[in-house]
């Protein structure tokens, strides 16, 4: 426990009382008093205009940071094909490595994946560590995390980045615990200061709040990064890099939770986490068969089909399409919401899209508050008209 109110500085102004997300601060006399439910979140420290509240971080473990150097990007591949998020990691990682005057390495784990190393070098990597074995054919948590942790402990990178994908969000939390360092999930911003401290910015509370997170006393600094936020570099085939083949240990291959099958779900429309354009339908569609309208528009735009929770719960469309708090968070270039009123649980899943179009007959629907363009009207008229005009163009 180490939160302190400095009596000589506190004026009893109550700014901290308002700032505390947990209602744990009261003012007694002219002094802030912190209650037992304090989680040391620090909201009051940033709110105080008088520097009267301090959280003491005791240094428990000093690490010799000079041993750690280089930026790593954990490549994600499926059936040998490098996923686009990897090139975004290389773009972000290149910038960080250049600022630090260090090298950028890609870690490529899979089966028969060595051919992809060239692509990673063209994408910005100085080194590619290739880990190739049949045990890595499908993503499996245990062997992937074991080999990655072993490499981190051995080579001591300063920063490790991975995609905030299903694989990244399952694998990287394991690795961070195995190597005993901090991890920041789902970053939308990364920068670095002169001391090599990584400033990791991420949304929290469903995107209502942004937080900048540091890993001051541990290395490596690990982060997963949201897809489509960072910029990939143009591929440059003339770039030179080194390919290192990593020897496996027998213990790397040990698997208790074994993948026995992969079932691909056939979808007319691409997966929403990857899509640049998403057309989503909600309760305003009135009946399951009307989802075909949304599908047609998505098809005309080359986009994916999303849905509100109401439409999924009604059984009109599978859960994998759900956008929002209990579904997926998406960040499209163009998001079209059709017949979706815009409950906050939906908004937090899509409000960081670049351009939002809302089509709704209720002019007071909350979706219009986040919409770049809104059409107040009957979607049964509007959508077919859009499809027709897009087809003609």
């Amino acid at each position, binding site marked *: 426990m180490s939160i302190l109110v400095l009596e000589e500085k506190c004026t009893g102004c109550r700014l901290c009382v308002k700032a505390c*997300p947990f209602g744990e601060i009261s003012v007694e006399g002219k002094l802030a008093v912190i209650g037992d439910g304090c989680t*040391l979140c620090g909201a009051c420290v940033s709110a105080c205009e008088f520097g009267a509240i301090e959280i003491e971080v005791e240094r428990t473990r000093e690490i010799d940071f000079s041993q750690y150097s280089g930026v790593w990007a954990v490549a994600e591949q499926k059936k040998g094909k490098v996923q686009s998020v990897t090139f975004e990691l290389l773009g972000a990682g290149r910038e960080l490595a250049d600022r630090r005057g260090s090298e950028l390495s890609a870690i490529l784990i899979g089966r028969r994946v060595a051919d992809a190393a060239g692509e990673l070098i063209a994408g910005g990597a100085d080194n590619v560590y290739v880990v190739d074995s049949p045990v890595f054919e499908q993503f499996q948590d245990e062997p992937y995390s074991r080999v990655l942790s072993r490499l981190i402990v051995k080579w001591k990178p300063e920063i490790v980045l991975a995609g905030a994908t299903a694989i990244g969000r399952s694998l990287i*939390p*394991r690795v961070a615990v195995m190597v005993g360092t901090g*991890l920041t999930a789902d970053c939308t911003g990364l920068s670095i200061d002169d001391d090599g401290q990584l400033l990791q910015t991420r949304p*929290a509370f469903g995107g*209502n709040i942004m937080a900048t997170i540091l890993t001051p006393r541990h290395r490596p600094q690990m982060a997963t990064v949201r897809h489509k936020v960072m910029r990939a570099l143009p591929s440059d085939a003339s770039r030179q890099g080194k390919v290192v083949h990593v020897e496996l240990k027998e213990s790397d291959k040990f698997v208790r939770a074994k993948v026995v099958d992969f079932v691909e779900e056939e979808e007319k429309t691409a997966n929403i986490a990857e899509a640049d354009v998403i057309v989503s339908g909600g309760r305003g569609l009135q009946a399951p068969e009307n989802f075909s309208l949304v599908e047609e528009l998505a098809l005309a735009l080359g986009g994916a089909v999303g849905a509100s929770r109401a439409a999924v719960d009604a059984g009109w469309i599978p859960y*994998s399409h759900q956008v929002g708090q209990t579904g997926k968070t998406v960040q499209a270039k163009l998001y079209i919401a059709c017949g979706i009123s815009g409950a906050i649980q939906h908004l937090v899943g899509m409000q960081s899209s670049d351009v939002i179009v809302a089509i709704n007959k209720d002019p007071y629907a909350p979706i219009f508050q986040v919409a770049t363009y809104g059409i107040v009207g009957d979607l049964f008229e509007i959508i077919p008209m859009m499809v027709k005009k897009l087809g003609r163009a």
Partner: protein
Amino acid sequence: MHIIVCIKQVPDTTNIKINPETNTLMREGVECIVNPFDMYAIEEALRLKERCEGKVTAVTMGPPQAESALREALSLGVDEAVLISNRAFAGSDTLATSFTLARAIQKIGEYDIVICGKQAIDGDTAQVGPGVAVQLNIPQITFVKKIEEVTPPPAGSIRAERMMEEGFQVVESRLPVLLTVVKEINEPRLPSLRGKMKARKANIQVWGPEELGVDSDRIGLKGSPTYVSRIFAPPQRKSGKIFQGDAEEVVDQLLHELRDGKLV
């Protein structure tokens, strides 16, 4: 069979906003709820108990008021509940939290399955489940949307479907195992009146660092490698253009804008 569910009490994030002028959280009227994903975890644990016979224990770490989240779990049919609560745990990040939860699970005793929600809706990290699995040295299956088969101990195995971006993996594991579950897995039940009565009277154990026998360097702020240095409001969206009137006209106006922005 013994199933342990890890739950978290979270503010109902729908109401949390930041005051852009003062950069502070505005929390008027924010209620606390059981993290929605954890409700699916509780439900799945209860279904497993009904299928295989056994016991369900819920555990949470949080301030004293997190007890009400445990009472809610008890009202649904959970048999026992443990609250990990002490000032010393304050400021825990996902590493310190997973360490503490793992120690509590070990203290609870023999278990076969640990179930967590996919992620909590306040932090959205999805890191504590896998962290607990590593700390317990047991296998994990994340993002489970269906349990296909369970064989209780001594044979002890499970087959589950794990959601990925373009489909799902079928994963087989021995027990004990840790699962994180997504919404698709079930439809949570409502508490019965009898359940509510029972929950009100139930005795909830409260454990601190002494009961868990944990080193103070590994818990709370001291045991947390990450540190929140700043919170701020996301950039606000500019208010948009609204088109209203004849369908053909409004569609033309919209497509004109989208073409200007090279979006179509």
